Each structure stands twice: as structure tokens, then as C-alpha cells.
């Protein structure tokens, strides 16, 4: 059966799956580029995504508007990451502990909200999620159409965010300030840049993207909410940023690589590869480590990475 791997339909399905699976990693990863460039390692992306997922889903359910749901996910993501910002920037807490604490909080809170809002139902709440776009001729193109032109609108939005993120970081004053506060906050401060404000913004933007990624999972990828809907994607996206050396285009490749590993893993299982399913499940994680190995040698971390800033500290 493994000969099927080389069939065209397999490849088409694989690549379409890759793009789909890459999207919910790409979105938060792009957000974390802002955050990490500003010198903050936000491990709470996972919890933030969950909050985005539950809130986006709830609002979409209540209003019937997916876009409103998406917006809510983004806003809630920002609100939740505000806690991270406060802890890591104002309180100057250790970022690892703050991140883990927030993940526990986010997971608990999302489950709590779901139960309180939706109660126990014999069938879960569902919505009509974003449907794949259908461009008459293009979507029907044999291979290209099936791989690229059959996703929902948010997938395209996510990939559009790649050049946008690049543009903001490289070409705007805001991007420059982000790089500066991550690199040499004291210098930025002495040049009249509010390190706190820039870092807060960077964390909030990261939160917005993470919230969007979370909402994507419940209103565009799936059409229901479960507690494990994020399933480690937040952590993976943090890894992708480091793998990407903080560059948006490389983050896209990182997300695609992870998507490919996940999609391939499922398909190899389905085709009855002689490898036990549990070992195949390792594939995406092994791929992440492998990617890190190849990328890290050259990775230049922002000099103030994970370091809180205080003007008074010498």
C-alpha cells in the first residue's frame, strides 16, 4: 500500500493538509516574532490560544457571525496576554514561570467557561465554520487548485500576514523600536523610547495573533470547541519562532515543515506503514528538534532576551 505515497492524489492531499495544519501555527508564530524580538519569551501562547478559541467560538455561536467571533478571539487574546505583559514587564517576573502559570490558568479558565456557558449537552455546540472559498475556475484547477485554492479565507489571511509582519518589523518605526528594546533596552530608553510601552505593545500584538490562531481552530478549522483543541500548537509556534531566527518568512517555512510532518504522519498511519502509530506521532516533534539543530547555530537571540528591564538597574 505504501506505493500509494507516490500517487498524485496522495501528494495533493498531503500538501493541502500541510497548508491547513501550518496555518494555526503560523498565525501565533508571527505574533511571537514581535514579542520575542522585543525580548520577551512568552510561553503562555498555548493558554492564550485556548482563550481565543473559547471566546471566539462562544461569540460566533451566540451572534452567528464568524467575523465577530474572530474579532473576539483577537481581543481576548490581547487581554489575556496583558497579564503576561504585566508580569514580565512591570512585575519583572521570570518569564518561564509566568508563561507556565498562565497556561494552567488559561486551560482551566477555558474549560470553566465552556462548561458554564454551554452546560452539558448530549451533542456538542457547533457552528457553521468558515467554508473553503470557491473561485469558479481556479479552485477547480486539477492540482494547483486542490492544493492552494480550496482553503478558507483565514488561511489566506494568515499567509498574507507574513509579508505584513515583515514590513512592520523592517520598514516601520514601530518595528525598529521593537528591535531596539529587545536588543538594548537601555539605549532605547535613553533615546526617549518607552521600553515598557513598546514591550507591552509587542506582547499584546503577540496575544492578538495567538487569540486569532486560537479562534481559527474553533471557527475555521474545526466547528466546535474541545479542551484539547489547541493541542500544543502554542508551544510549537514558540519553537518555530526560534527556528525561524525571528524572521517572518522563515517562520512560514517552519510552520509548513511542522504542518508537513503532521500531515505526513497521519497519512503514513492511514496507509498502514510498518511503523507503529505512536512512533509516527513523534514525527512533528522530531522534525522541530531537527529544524532547531539546523537553524540554531546561526540564531542571534536579541541581547535582552528574557531579561526584564529597569531603568535603575546598572
Amino acid at each position, binding site marked *: 500500500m505504501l506505493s500509494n505515497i507516490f500517487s498524485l492524489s496522495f501528494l495533493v492531499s498531503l500538501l493541502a493538509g500541510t497548508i491547513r495544519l501550518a496555518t494555526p501555527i503560523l498565525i501565533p508564530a508571527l505574533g511571537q516574532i514581535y514579542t520575542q524580538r522585543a525580548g520577551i519569551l512568552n510561553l503562555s501562547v498555548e493558554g492564550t490560544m485556548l482563550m481565543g478559541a473559547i471566546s471566539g467560538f462562544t461569540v460566533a455561536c451566540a451572534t452567528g457571525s464568524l467575523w465577530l467571533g474572530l474579532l473576539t478571539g483577537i481581543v481576548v487574546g490581547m487581554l489575556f496576554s496583558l497579564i503576561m505583559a504585566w508580569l514580565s514587564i512591570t512585575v519583572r517576573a521570570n518569564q518561564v514561570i509566568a508563561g507556565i502559570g498562565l497556561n494552567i490558568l488559561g486551560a482551566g479558565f477555558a474549560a470553566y467557561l465552556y462548561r458554564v456557558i454551554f452546560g452539558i449537552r448530549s451533542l456538542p455546540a457547533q457552528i457553521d465554520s468558515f467554508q473553503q472559498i470557491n473561485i469558479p475556475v481556479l479552485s477547480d484547477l486539477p492540482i494547483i487548485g486542490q492544493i492552494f485554492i480550496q482553503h478558507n479565507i483565514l488561511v489566506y489571511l494568515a499567509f498574507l500576514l507574513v509579508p505584513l509582519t515583515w514590513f512592520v518589523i523592517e520598514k516601520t*518605526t514601530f518595528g525598529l523600536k521593537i528591535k531596539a528594546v529587545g*536588543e538594548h533596552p537601555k539605549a532605547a*530608553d*535613553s*533615546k526617549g523610547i518607552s521600553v515598557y510601552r513598546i514591550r507591552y505593545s509587542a506582547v499584546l500584538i503577540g496575544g492578538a495573533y495567538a487569540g486569532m490562531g486560537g479562534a481559527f481552530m474553533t471557527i475555521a478549522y474545526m466547528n466546535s470547541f474541545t479542551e484539547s483543541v489547541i493541542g500544543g500548537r502554542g508551544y510549537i509556534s514558540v519553537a518555530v519562532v526560534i527556528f525561524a531566527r525571528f524572521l517572518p518568512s522563515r517562520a512560514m517555512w517552519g510552520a509548513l515543515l511542522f504542518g508537513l510532518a503532521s500531515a505526513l504522519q497521519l497519512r503514513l498511519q492511514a496507509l498502514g506503514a510498518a511503523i507503529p502509530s505512536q512512533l509516527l506521532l513523534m514525527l512533528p516533534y522530531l522534525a522541530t528538534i531537527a529544524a532547531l539543530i539546523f537553524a540554531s547555530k546561526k540564531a542571534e537571540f536579541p541581547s535582552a532576551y528574557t531579561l526584564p528591564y529597569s531603568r535603575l*538597574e546598572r
Partner: protein
Amino acid sequence: MENMAVKMQGITKAFNGVKANDHVDFYLEKGSIHGLLGENGAGKTTLMNILYGLYQQDEGTIMINGKIEDISSPVKAISLGIGMVHQHFMLARPLTVVENVMLGRKSRRGILLDTKQTAQELAAVSDKYKMGVDPYSKIWQLSVGEQQRVEILTAIYMGAQTLILDEPTAVLTPQETELFFDTLREMREDGKSIILITHKLEEIVEIVDEVTVLRDGKMIGTKKMDPSVTKGELTNMMVGRDVLFNFPEITKQPGEVKLSFRNICVRNDKGLPALKDFSLDIRESEVVGLAGVDGNGQKELCEVLTGLRKADSGEMTLGGEPVINKEPIFFINKKVSYIPEDRHTTGLALDWSLKRNLIFKSIGKAPYSRNGLMQSKCINAYWEKAKDEYQIKAICGDEKARSLSGGNQQKIILAREIDVEPEVLIADQPTRGLDVGAAEYVRNKIIEARNNSAAVLVVSADLEEILQISDRIAVIYDGELMGILPRGADTYEIGELMMGKREEVAVSGK
């Protein structure tokens, strides 16, 4: 009309209850260069940080151009025409010059960067003051002197009328310093006012119009500089006593060759050749001064000599034993002491206590360690002894090294490196940033080590210092040995070699 650019009155600022500034009055006349003198920790930087809005004073008022101003942040300071070049450069290394400049100002293209325009204007200012700065080079590619110029350029470009320079010359070579002073004079011509913090009294005498002296956070006085003011007078104001520029007598003549290296080739952090076939011998009871413009391979050489950097090729013997590319611990055990140039990331563990910093090269060694356990009692006793002997000003041994002033930090390193009675002492810029008193103290200690039979290599950009303490003077340029001169050599000659003029080389001396 008011002719004071800055008037600070009754400025008080306390850290942890300790007054870094205690009712300081400081007046800066327009169009003048004003020196600010004081020992390490006297409160110079603190005062200037207050003027620049980085710190808020606890008491006192600031008047800029005759108006009382509340300088709540650097932005406010910049808008009042105040610029500052810090003791530690405030430049983001991966960014370009123009990017660093754009950080501090509003873009004319709104949220978009106006890189091109800024770069052009920057180049224009650079040309005007003959600074030769390329706006598009990345900071990490620049030498220390160039970075210095970038900082000044930035301040001028930002429209600074009052410029604060915190120890700008500490890292410059004599030639660079001359160039730099020319720039300062030109700026004074343009009507700008300049505050110059320095520990080098000659510089005060050479360029400053007026000088203010701080001691222990208090203002001692302000003096108009005229030829009648002597260095001794200034020192006395600073330290509160006469500093005797006396060195211990030289009690021993150089002995056998202790440390010898031949044809060392090594790369720097960027992978470029830093030393090319470098050879030198250092004898027992001998101080070899290594003169050279900063960044010509001195740091890499010191690191090879202490095992911190691996040489690509070459040979090295210590007391006759081949030792090239051994681990750092090997050299430590062989009593090779090293005072590194960078005390913040190499010489000290800033967040460790002073005590621990004193013994961190002796982890696992008696008497500080017994049966695998570090002995607190023994370490405490050693701290008390070192504190007295090296006159370290600190609240207690449990204080973090970070909280000490630069001079006292250097004393910690000195105590650690010299107290082991080193057989070889490598000292890289041992007095950089130290006040005259502290510098004198350090040099004394180095001579003492020499008299105790140590073979000493002193790297310094300060020719004065090299001439004072060296038995022989080696000159390095672009990773190559340019020549070796005897004690009392001519400054001009050394300067020539430092600029790259070659001389016949006899590595062993005599």
C-alpha cells in the same frame, strides 16, 4: 540675558539610602567645555543621568537656559537640546548607524522609516565634523572609536546644544583623542556647550574651560581653568589628599624567560584573523607593556595566553612546558592570572556576592573547599582580609558585584588575581575607567607582583601608563608585532609603530 546653559541647584539623589549626589550645584556656561571630575563612585554619572532625565532627583532644581524645567525623561531632555554619550555605549549592535539614529527621532514619513533621508543628512553632519561615519554600517562592525563618533554624531544630529560626554576618551587612543578634541573645539565654536567627564587630568588641562569636582556625592568646587591650575591641585580636590605618583622601587631585575610564545595565529569572534604569527617572550620579574590601538588583537592574545581562546597555530611554553590550547583551568592552576578587559561579562559574575567573586577561580581548591564543600567561614575570612588590604568600598561581602562602582569592581578582580601570587599576570586595560587614585593603586599592585617574580603583560591603550610601568614595550598593529622598545622609549616612536610602521624585531629582548 542668561548665559547659563544648565543650572543645577541643590541636587540630591540617594540610592538605598546612600547619597550618590548630595546637594550638588552645577553650572554650565553656554559655549564652553566644562570638565566634571571625581573619584569612582563620586556621583558624576548619577548627576548627568539626572540632567538627561534618566533618573529623577530627590531634591533640587534644574534650569535650562534660565527656565526651571522638570526633566522627567530623556525625551524631555532631548527636546530641551540636551544630548548624552554614555560611559557604556547606547547602541544596538545588530542595527545600522542610521537605524540607531532613527530610534531617537520622529520619522518624517509617519509610521514608515525615513532611512534614506536620515542617512543623507547624517552623512552631511559627519562630513562637517570630519567624523567619517558610514550611516549604513552595522554597529558591531565598528571599532570602539567609531562607535564613540556615532554616539556624538547622533547627539549633534538630534540638535543637541548641550552635550554630556561620560568618559568618552577612556577607550580612545592618543591619536583618536586628538581627533576627538578637535571635534569638541569645533562644536564649541558653533556655540554648543559640553560637559566632559574624564579621569585623565591632562585632558582637563588641555581642553576644558572650567571644571567642577565631586567627592563622595558632594560638590567640592568649581574652578576656571587657566595655566596656573596644576594637576596636583585637581587631584587634591578630588581625593582630599595628595596622590603621590610614586611607584615601588624595582627590587629585582628580569630573570629567566617564563612565558614564551611563537607564531601564534588566532581568529576573532567574527572568524577573521586577529593575530598573525605573533611571538613574544616574557621573563620573570618583568613587565612587558603591549601598546596598540584598541582592537588590534590584544584581547585575543590575552585570551590565548589564558586558554580562553584556541589558537589556530603556534607554540607556547610556560616555564619550558608546552601549553598551547590547554583549558583555562590549567592556566589557573599554573598561577596564570588574568585581569580581563571586560569586567562586566568576563571578570565578574555581576549577580554574585562580592565574596564569591573573590574566590570563584578557586572552586574545588583548598582552603576554600574541603571534601567537596565550599567553606563559608574561610571565604568570609578571606573577604575581610581582601576588603581591608585592597580598600574595597562596599557595604558587606554579600552585596552583589553589580552594585559596586567601576573602580571597586576592578579592585575585586585585582584582589582575586594578585592575591594568588601569580607567576604570570596578564592585565588587559587594568585601569580603564578608574580614577587617578585607583589607577595609581592598580599600577602599584602590578609592580608589586613583578617584584614578587611574576612575569607580567600589561595591555593598555594609555601610553602614559605603558611608559610608567613597563620594562619593555611591545607594539602591536593589526595582529602583528611591530617592534619591541626598551624602558624609557620615546612616545613619538611608539606612536609611529602603533600606526603600523615596522621595526626590526627581537622577541626575547636584550
